């Protein structure tokens, strides 16, 4: 399993390096996502219905629909090139999506159209993954404890809400994007879109609770430009 992963990682690196070699001095867009206003504070989740999960959390798990960090930074924001990218190499490798302690990891899984998504259940209980897609075909599969991981692909770009009916608090998103230039903001709200050929781009940032924002930016060869996003947080 892990060997398989490593092999894929190696492949990715090789492909990227060869690609960067091909185009001289690719640019990079990076930046920080923050919010103003007061977001709803994370609510603790009552997992008493599923003791096997409850005991995996020393402090009760909290809602993840607005995860904030130091300096008003905002996590789980999908930032991607929505227009202007001339090249669209297929993102290699597999995106993995795990169910652990009755929580989805990651909370927002970004992947490219046609990219393989590997879904694992590390819990001692049975989960069902209900992909409530609209553009793509919706599906709803159970994964009993110990059942092998299964893979899915999506053929249309879409932000797909995911839920587990057995544990209604479990919610997540599959961000299926047509481009391979995407990133999800980390704990500090920072993101990075490397390997961009010189040109004019539209950068879009999407957050599950606070909506979408776009910015235009032009980068030259080898440039690294900062694009920051500020979302208006809602208390409810």
């Amino acid at each position, binding site marked *: 399993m892990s060997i398989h992963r490593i092999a894929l990682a190696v492949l990715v690196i090789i492909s990227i390096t060869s690609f960067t070699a091909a185009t001289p001095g690719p640019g990079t867009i990076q930046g920080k996502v923050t919010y103003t206003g007061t977001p709803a504070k994370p609510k603790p989740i009552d997992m008493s219905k599923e003791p096997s999960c409850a005991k995996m959390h020393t402090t009760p798990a909290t809602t993840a629909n607005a995860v904030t960090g130091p300096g008003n930074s905002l996590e789980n924001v999908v930032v991607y090139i929505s227009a202007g990218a001339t090249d669209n190499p297929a993102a290699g490798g597999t995106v993995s999506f795990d169910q652990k302690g009755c929580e989805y990891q990651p909370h927002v899984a970004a992947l490219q159209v046609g990219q393989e998504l590997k879904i694992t259940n590390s819990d001692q*209980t049975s989960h069902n993954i*209900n992909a409530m897609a609209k553009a793509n075909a919706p599906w709803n599969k*159970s994964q*009993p404890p110990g059942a092998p991981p299964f893979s899915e692909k999506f053929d249309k770009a879409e932000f797909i809400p995911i839920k587990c009916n057995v544990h209604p608090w479990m919610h997540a998103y599959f961000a299926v994007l047509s481009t391979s230039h995407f990133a999800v903001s980390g704990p500090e709200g920072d993101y990075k879109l490397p390997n961009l050929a010189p040109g004019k781009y539209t950068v879009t940032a999407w957050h599950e609770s606070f909506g979408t924002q776009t910015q235009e930016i032009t980068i030259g060869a080898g440039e690294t430009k900062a694009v920051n996003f500020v979302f208006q947080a809602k208390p409810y």
Partner: protein
Amino acid sequence: MEQAPAQALRHHPAPPQNFIRKYIFSIDHKVIGKQYLGLALLSAFVGMVLSWAMRIHLGWPDASIPLLGRLSPNGAPGGVMTPEYYLSLMTMHGTIMAFFVLTAAPLSGFGNYFLPIQVGAEDMAFPRINMSSFWITFIGFILAALTFVIPDGPPISGWTAYPPLSAVGPDAGPGQGWGQNLWGLSIACFTVASLLGSLNFLATTLDMRTKGMTLSRLPISVWGWFITAALGLLAFAVLLPCALLLILDRLAGTSFYIPGGLVLADRVQPHNGGSPLLFQHLFWFFGHPEVYLIILPAFGIIGHVLPTFIRKPLLGGWKVLTACMMLIALLSLVVWGHHMFVSGMSPYSAMLFSVPTMFITIPSIIAMLIWIFSLYGADIRFSTPALFALGFLSLFISGGIGGFFLAQPSTDSYLHATYFVVGHFHFTMGISAVFAIFAGFYYWFPKMTGRMMDETLGKIHFWASFIGMYGIFMPMHFLGFAGHVRRYSALVDDYLVPLLGTQRFISIAALVVGAVQMLFFFNFIWSYFKGKKAAENPWEATTLEWETTSPPPIDNFGGRRLTVYHGPMEYNVAGSRGDYVMQASPEPAAARAGD
């Protein structure tokens, strides 16, 4: 029917020669009866295999069932059953067993084959309608079977298919898309076929009786089929619109059963104002009579088989048992609400439904006493059919007792939807009916095939089944007292975990009983080809089917038209050849010894 001779061989100008007309699209009620029985055997096998898979999963939740993984990679990834696939199997087990086995075999199967012969007709009143009702049933079966191969899988809403779960479509979960649609269509087909069948049974019994076959001389089995057909004509007539409205809610976006403001799959469902309780009322108005559609033919078969092997008429003759069956049928039309005590129905109507339900026990108990006390002073011949008939009596007592608990709102409010219910209805409409089917099978097999079934295998089959069935379903009653909820695919509740051992015991019993049924299938096939030849009347019985060859000719009596002089239960008659007088024998009924 004084012009009777004029219509001799009406339906059979010449026995059809080509294979298709003779065995597939035959209008001969005997072939159709065999087709129904064949379909029932196939369905029984399928339903049993489903229950094995369920029992294995219940006893050993992590057990991998390789073949299952092959059958449905989604439903059982790596052979480990998913919760929804358990419910799919449960739904199809219930549907296939209740409709295609328990309704099809005793009524449509044996009824088709023997009702015309027992009333002395050459065929059903409407042979072509008869043929079509089998083939419509068959289409229904195919539709049900298709649910296993479509990607969506079979529905998960149980054989009762309560809306909104069954009505809102795929948002309700796996199997609720095309699986549920096919299921609905399958039920609709079965319903239409059953209505046509009932029509045939009633018309045949009323108008096709041969000379001298007065109502008082009808065999009890005919009474069973006749009353059942009458009940079915009313009950299925309600199921049809009930299913139609469900299908419309699913496919045409109407809101008969679906209320407004329901949120499934994170979207507000586009329906408004419907009433789930409306469905429950319509469904159970059919659903309760349905259990009597299943058990009344069984009553008839037992009432027919038993006298042959105790060599005595039933106590009170045909009148008492028939009256009981009629009373049960009538009462069954006004008690459907006892399935809905805790379903949000007015608590007052709960009490109104409770009382007539309790009163059904009276005719049932009278029927039981008639059978039991007919044994008094008898001379029981323990052939396999007799054993199954006696087993029926014991099992039906055990099943009926549970009714006292479920008929009262107060006690039902604890036992409702627990394994007590599962044990109860399996004993009454499930196993009792199955035992009656087996009794009929061993009893009539010689007539249908011209060969006897093997008695030794038959007896082993009986003993293992009889004890095994108690091993399966009695503990379920106990689990019910412990509050063990039914329709659970795994035991995760704290108070259920300790009950896993009992579930395993039941599973083992179920697997053993299942294995024993293989013995029956073997006996059936082996005897069909190699069994020893059967005489015209191997059991020394009195009714008309034993007046003709085994198997009977295409027109049942080889051009003869029998005239009936005697009742169906002229056993133990002094001064007759042997100890019995056949219905069509001209000899006068002498005084019965012991009376």
